[in-house]
């Protein structure tokens, strides 16, 4: 095995592979930063260029882009409250408030550093899992997918804010939107009103752009301020260094969320958005600074960012071992594997083991290079936050509208984004939390699909499988914890009086 690991490394030690990886990273950063241009689009654009390349060079290009998209998505999330990709939604919630405090460079630095750590954790798990990959994956099935997604749904309460009823309504609205489109089992169109464009459901990008970015632009324009509300004290370089230190001083949350990201990555179909939201929800519950979540908390940035990148390592496990792609991006990578002559499945764990290690090394190196580039670019990018909003606002509006259109290439999405923008504005003004709605939209379809599958395959007692029982225990603890916490707080307050 060590020999295969060294062979894998040797495959990458060429100028061609490193240059292609850098090209992939730059393309990934651009695609990630522009809302609507997802990682899948980046891979689809790059895929034709890999024809005729050797496997290591092709994978360097594609995986480089795939990894860099994650950090690229967090750049726009932090600067303009618009996640460049679905995987950066939760990064907005604390990244943008930190940017408003004049500390965008620090937020970007935290995102870059935690992405690197997450990516390295994913790499470590991927390598550690190689000997046991196939057997482990066969133990996970639809009941576990359903329960894992259900755990995510319980975070609706955590991310709710002041009123529990409003949080539940917001989460419920998200779920209701998730059921628009073809029913996953019977393919019956639901709530489509005869519109063909709704058969695939409502895209996430117009919802996120509408709910988060557009109301924020409106508020900024009304106040006439720049994104950063206060003057910057100290140098940008100092803030970047501070961000790196912040990340490592919160090592427990970092490791916890990286591990969660890997776990979600291993489960095909859940995707990076789930990892991002679940990690944020977990940190909002366990972090020592949970009181400051939503106001620019360090853990609120590093939790989703580390989970995003560690997920890639987890994603590769079913892709390599079983040929089952973990997500849409991995499906394109799977196609690329076949195009360059690699056959995912048992062969990758025996005769093709050196290629498997090469892929793992690319994952690690691409993460480190992305972080290095990210840290170098933090300072100039962060200066955008100090531009007058009168100049920045039309540019942000343009990015939002183009982003909404590019996601699916439908002009209807632009109208949806504006509609959700007005709705998000009303929610903001009337105290309805917006984060639970996103959780509902993301998890609704997953929960529905896997519950139907679990019921069909395992019957009503599907949750009695060993891993399912563990997840069920997590669901119960997650749901009971707030009530128990509230009771303890009331008891303490009573004792204090």
């Amino acid at each position: 095995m060590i020999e295969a690991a060294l062979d894998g490394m040797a495959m990458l030690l060429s100028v061609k592979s490193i240059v292609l990886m850098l090209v992939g990273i730059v393309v990934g950063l651009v695609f990630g930063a522009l809302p609507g241009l997802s990682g899948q689009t980046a891979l689809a654009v790059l895929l034709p260029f890999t024809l005729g390349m050797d496997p290591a060079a092709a994978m360097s290009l594609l995986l480089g882009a795939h990894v860099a998209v994650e950090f690229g998505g967090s750049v726009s999330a932090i600067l303009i409250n618009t996640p460049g990709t679905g995987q950066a939604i939760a990064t907005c919630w604390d990244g943008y408030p930190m940017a408003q405090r004049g500390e965008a460079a620090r937020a970007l630095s935290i995102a870059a550093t935690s992405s690197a750590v997450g990516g390295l954790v994913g790499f470590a798990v991927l390598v550690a899992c190689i000997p046991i990959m196939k057997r482990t994956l066969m133990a996970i099935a639809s009941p576990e997918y359903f329960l894992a997604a259900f755990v995510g749904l319980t975070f609706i309460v955590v991310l709710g804010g002041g009123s529990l009823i409003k949080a539940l309504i917001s989460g419920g609205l998200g779920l209701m939107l998730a059921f628009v489109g073809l029913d996953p089992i019977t393919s019956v169109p639901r709530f489509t009103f005869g519109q063909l464009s709704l058969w695939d459901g409502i895209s996430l990008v117009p919802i996120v752009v509408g709910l988060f970015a557009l109301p924020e632009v409106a508020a900024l324009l009304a106040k006439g301020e720049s994104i950063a509300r206060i003057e910057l004290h100290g140098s940008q370089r100092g803030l970047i260094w501070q961000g790196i230190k912040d990340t490592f001083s919160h090592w427990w949350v970092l490791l916890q969320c990286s591990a969660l990201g890997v776990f979600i990555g291993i489960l095909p179909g859940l995707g990076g958005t789930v990892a991002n939201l679940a990690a944020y929800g977990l940190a909002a519950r366990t972090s020592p600074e949970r009181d400051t979540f939503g106001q620019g908390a360090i853990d609120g940035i590093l939790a989703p960012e580390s989970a995003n990148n560690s997920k890639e390592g987890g994603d590769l496990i079913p892709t390599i071992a079983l040929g089952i792609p973990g997500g849409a991006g991995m499906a394109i990578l799977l196609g690329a594997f076949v195009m360059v002559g690699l056959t995912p499945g048992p062969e990758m764990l025996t005769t093709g083991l050196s290629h498997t290690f090469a892929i793992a090394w690319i994952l690690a190196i691409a993460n480190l290079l992305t972080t290095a580039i990210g840290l170098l670019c933090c300072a100039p990018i962060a200066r955008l936050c100090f531009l007058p909003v009168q100049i920045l606002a039309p540019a942000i509006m343009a990015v939002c509208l183009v982003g909404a259109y590019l996601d699916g290439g439908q002009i209807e999405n632009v109208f949806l984004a504006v509609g959700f923008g007005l709705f998000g504005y009303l929610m903001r003004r009337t105290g309805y939390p917006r984060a639970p709605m996103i959780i509902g939209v993301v998890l609704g379809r997953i929960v529905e699909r896997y519950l139907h599958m679990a019921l069909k395959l395992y019957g009503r007692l599907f949750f009695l499988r060993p891993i399912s029982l563990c997840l069920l225990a997590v669901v119960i603890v997650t749901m009971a914890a707030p009530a128990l916490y509230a009771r303890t707080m009331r008891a303490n307050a009573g004792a204090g009086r």
Partner: protein
Amino acid sequence: MRWGRHVLSGALFLATAAYVWLAVGYKPTPRLFPLAVGIPMLVLTALQTAIECVPRLSTKYAALGTVDAERLAGKANDRVAEDDPRQTRKELAAFLWLGLAVGASMLLGMLWGIPLFIFIFLKLRSATRWTIAVGLPLGTLGVMYLLFVRVFQIPLYAGLLWE
């Protein structure tokens, strides 16, 4: 924005009722989840509407906000903005500008409509200098052309006038 709370809660109740009514018309499998979510939502939106309309209820049900949730109040920039009619008017005006951007994109296509919108915004709303008002839209046009047309060949909406 007190009236807004009443209107939004009531509208959500009506929308949920319509959703449930539509869901009832589907066969058992497709309607299972929409009804499982829709019916509790109907109860919640009705309760919220009642809380907004009857002040006595709002104090009674305030306990439904758990301590955990109260501690996390303000999450995701969701602090309720202060009621200032001038501020509200300015915010709504921003959506009119957004409408202009959509209109320009629909008519002229995104490649030409977006830079034109930026120019009009910078000149009329922001009253910036000509160098910025012309330079920024031209820069945007250049970046969009290079990125979407030349390098990645991703088609942008062409516009009703050119189609």
